[in-house]
């Protein structure tokens, strides 16, 4: 390695620190909440005070703490079967987060791979992949998912596959566009003109340059995936008892709005805060990583 190769590392590390210290308040709060959600995703079983499906018919529908009749034994109250709402919430959040992360990643990997393939191969490959993209975009996917889940029954594998198929076409379209335009950019042409193999051009130059917009797309898509999962579970078709997810809890709680509104409102609030935090983070990242989107 020659002296020329040494990147100015210390300086760049400093820039990162400086950026972190200048985070807007909203973004810090959102990032904090997402970290909390990730923590719950990993450690739900460790922190839950009760087993999430532990039934206690003596303590049914106790309200959450600030309300009259609440006990610290169940800080968020209990549901109609006396199950601890806090514990259920932790496990439900874990399920929802895991499914959404998995779904987002599946969709992203598939979409990005197909997008790359379409851009690289061109011709018939491109036509077929883009036709698939158009087809996927032209289908009411949520409704098809609903029908598949109803008819195929309660299968986790099917549910995950459906989540993975949700939104892949956006990644494919964006990746293809980015790769095509990056390849027409001077630097990619120039490196090719130096005698580099396509692999080098893609891995060393194009991928790092399009990573930003793709990450942004990931953050845009993630809240949508959460909403997709929770909506299906809310309708009773995604995650079904005995398992639980945020949408499923909300769907269950909906029947007790009059007597125990918190059964619906608390999980709803968690879903809302998650999507909101992710959107706030996504907006911030978008301005940081992809200035072309916001002039």
């Amino acid at each position, binding site marked *: 390695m020659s002296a020329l190769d040494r990147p100015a590392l210390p300086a760049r590390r400093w820039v990162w620190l400086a950026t972190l210290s200048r985070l807007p308040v909203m973004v810090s709060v959102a990032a904090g909440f997402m970290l909390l959600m990730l923590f719950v995703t990993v450690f739900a079983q460790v922190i839950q005070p009760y087993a999430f499906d532990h039934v206690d018919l003596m303590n049914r529908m106790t309200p959450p703490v600030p309300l009259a009749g609440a006990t610290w034994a169940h800080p968020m109250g209990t549901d109609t079967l006396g199950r601890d709402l806090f514990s259920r919430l932790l496990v439900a959040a874990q399920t929802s987060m895991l499914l959404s992360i998995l779904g987002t990643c599946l969709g992203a990997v598939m979409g990005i791979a197909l997008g790359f393939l379409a851009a690289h191969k061109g011709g018939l490959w491109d036509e077929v992949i883009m036709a698939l993209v158009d087809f996927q975009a032209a289908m009411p996917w949520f*409704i098809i998912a609903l*029908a598949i889940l*109803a008819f195929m029954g309660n299968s986790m594998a099917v549910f995950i596959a459906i989540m993975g198929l949700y939104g892949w076409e956006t990644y494919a379209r964006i990746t293809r566009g980015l790769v095509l335009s990056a390849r027409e950019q001077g630097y990619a042409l120039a490196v090719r003109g130096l005698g580099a193999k396509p692999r080098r051009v893609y891995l060393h130059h194009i991928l790092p340059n399009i990573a930003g917009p793709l990450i942004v797309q990931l953050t845009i898509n993630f809240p949508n995936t959460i909403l997709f999962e929770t909506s299906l579970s809310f*309708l009773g078709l995604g995650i079904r008892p005995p398992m639980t997810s945020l949408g499923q809890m909300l*769907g269950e709680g909906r029947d007790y709005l009059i007597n125990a509104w918190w059964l619906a*409102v608390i999980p709803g609030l968690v879903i809302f805060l998650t999507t909101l935090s992710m959107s706030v983070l996504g907006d911030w990242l978008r301005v940081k990583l992809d200035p072309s*989107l916001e*002039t």
Partner: protein
Amino acid sequence: MTWILLKLLRALVTMGLVLTFVFFVLRLSGDPTLVLLPDDVDQATREFYRAKWGLDAPLWEQYTSYLRALLQGDFGISFRNNIDAFQVVWDRVPKTALLGGTAIAIALLIGMPLGVLAAVYRDSWLDRTVMSIAVFGFSMPNFFLGILLILIFSLKLRVLPSSGSGTWAHLIMPAATLGTGFAAQIARYTRSSMIDVLSKPYMRTARSKGAGLTRRVSQHALPNASVPVVTILGIKVGEMLGWAVVTETVFAWPGIGRLLTSAVASRDLAVVQCIMILLAFTMVAANMVVDLVYGWLDPRVRVGARAQA
């Protein structure tokens, strides 16, 4: 004219693919006789119904007869109540159209002007306020918003009915629920599209002519900025149909979405199939309409791509 024909052809191909997809997904996902008939019926009865519903033929034959029937407008018989599936679905269409139309109207009437204002007064308090509200708006899960509205306006304040349809009061909460997220998205797209257009050189030309702000925005910027917004609108119709199912369930709004959830629960194959085809058709049609509006808004599409002289 060629491009309209091409669009039409493309739409037909998409519809064909959707029909095929729907058929195979629904046929492969379970035997309706297992669900619909009581558990204790004997094999002979089961076979009788299989034959009656055409489920005993090879899949390929089922598929061709399914397509043939569709071409003749025959969507099959609802397994549950033994009437024409299309009729069952069609009866619900006006309700969903009313709900969706109101929501789109709300989204456009609120979202577009707010987006325009935010872009014109970019980085002002107005912009920041509108955009913050928009982030809240589209992060809000629509079933949660619906439940909150019911909790507040039906259960606490007791001013609006929590479910059903019939009067304008019934429409308010479902339409607001469905329209909010949509309005937020439209506001964001309008803003970014307007910001893009406002920085274009022709806006400076308009300024140098001495055109005032109102004129610049309404005559020069908006016609250009609305092109991508219209495109988004077309894409979002599908998303909205999904949300409509949830909203209708929350408010027990007797539209297609509600019918779908109950048909799905009872595995009424013909009705589910009919709904999916109808919704897919709606999406394809929406995209066609968008293409036409596109051509009307943008002369570059209308006149056809003549290479620059």
